[in-house]
């Protein structure tokens, strides 16, 4: 981990700060963000993938749906204006500010199991996002069956004309911030991605800052 992380970085919206959490490299995080509140995700070290799932706080069976989100906006990338929709097609959150430019909806989360396919069986016992989702999700009664395709904030996944797709070097940098507004009370489940075998974290996972603001 880089020794030069400034935990105060970030571009925060005006309002009362109701939570300001430093999430160490490789760690999970979760919170219920009340409808109307803003969640800012600050990439403190630069090019740090932040894997993220959303659940309607009062009905976890209704959750973020990558397909519903990309079909409604007609694009695979998330940026300012993107509405993060549930599997019932309803808005859970809206991206209201984005200093990075685009974020991934296709790549899903890394897991110990998929690492064996991508890099070889020597990676089986490395830490992975699914481990974070399962351990943090359990605190809210969520389990394996509740995991679906997730958002990857700050991860860069282009699709070539012939369909070739892959995680490539990021376009983020230290202090860049994306802010989402909760449209309903939303449980946000995050894995600060521990992947070390591809460029999604610049091969060096770093901390992120999660700030909840009440306008």
């Amino acid at each position, binding site marked *: 981990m880089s020794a030069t992380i400034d935990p105060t970085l970030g571009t925060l919206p005006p309002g009362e700060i109701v939570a300001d959490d430093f999430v160490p490299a490789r760690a999970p995080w979760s919170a219920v963000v009340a409808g109307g509140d803003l969640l800012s995700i600050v990439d403190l070290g630069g090019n740090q993938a932040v894997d993220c799932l959303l659940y309607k706080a009062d009905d976890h069976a209704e959750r973020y749906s990558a397909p519903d989100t990309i079909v409604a906006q007609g694009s695979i990338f998330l940026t300012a204006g993107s509405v993060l929709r549930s599997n019932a097609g309803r808005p859970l959150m809206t991206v209201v500010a984005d200093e990075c430019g685009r974020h991934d909806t296709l790549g899903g*989360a890394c897991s110990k199991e*998929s690492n064996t396919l991508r890099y070889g069986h020597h990676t089986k016992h490395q830490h992975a996002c699914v481990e974070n989702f399962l351990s943090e999700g359990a605190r809210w009664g969520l389990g394996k069956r509740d995991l679906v*395709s997730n958002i990857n904030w700050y991860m860069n996944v282009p699709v070539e004309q012939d*369909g070739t797709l892959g995680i490539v070097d990021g376009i983020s940098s230290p202090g860049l911030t994306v802010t989402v507004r909760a449209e309903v009370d939303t449980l946000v489940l995050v894995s600060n991605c521990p992947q070390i075998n591809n460029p999604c974290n610049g091969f060096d996972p770093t901390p992120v800052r999660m700030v909840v603001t009440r306008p």
Partner: protein
Amino acid sequence: MKGATDTTHAAREHARAQAGASAEAMPTLPASAWPAPPDGVAPADLTWAETVAGGGYASKVLGRGTTLRITDRDGAACAHLLLYNADQPWERLNVADTVKIPWQAYLGTGHPLLSDQGRVLATIIGDSSGRHDALCGTTAAGRRLQLLAAAKHGLEPRDVPPSLSLFAAVRVGAEGALEFEGSAGAGAAVELRIELPVIAILANVPHPLDRREEPAATTLELLAWRGEPTRPEDELWSSTPELERALLNTADYVEARDIA
């Protein structure tokens, strides 16, 4: 027929007299009675033969080694497909891993349909369409059908993840724009080799990006027959390092489970 069902005996006769009728969409039982088995397939090896109308769904538990042929008979079917490990349905199709691990967003021959456990649920071994989509999921109507089919296998709404769809192409354009390219026309077929015992769920509804006015899906034809899973001596096994390790993980599971 008024008056024919006014007693239990008459009602029974009335019900029984309906046998033998046929419908546009229906299963054929036994599957060996299907009138047109594929070349080289003995009728006795057929395990599933069913047609599914637009707006309909079907599901089946299929054994390892089965070939499942899905045909867009009339050119406007769209098969929204989900697969689960029949032993432990919390292991299921993961569309993110299915595009990420092969480094390829577009499905075609040789593409594995991967579970969240680093294993292959099925491999695409034949594809005369080339027009499919693993990104856009299904519609509200498709999800309703998937929930019904899933319920019949004891599964709940949270067990229904994003699905993939066959016979309707979506391509990603500049700046990530989704472009709908529709179907390849009547008669296109996809053959899946089932690599683990699976629950297969298919809903037949128009693709979510199908912008025709009042789109309707046409009939889907499903045919399955017994066969062999992908083995190390098959060319497909080592076609890519990622697929080889996925098939190795699959073989590891069935060996330990003693269902190889």
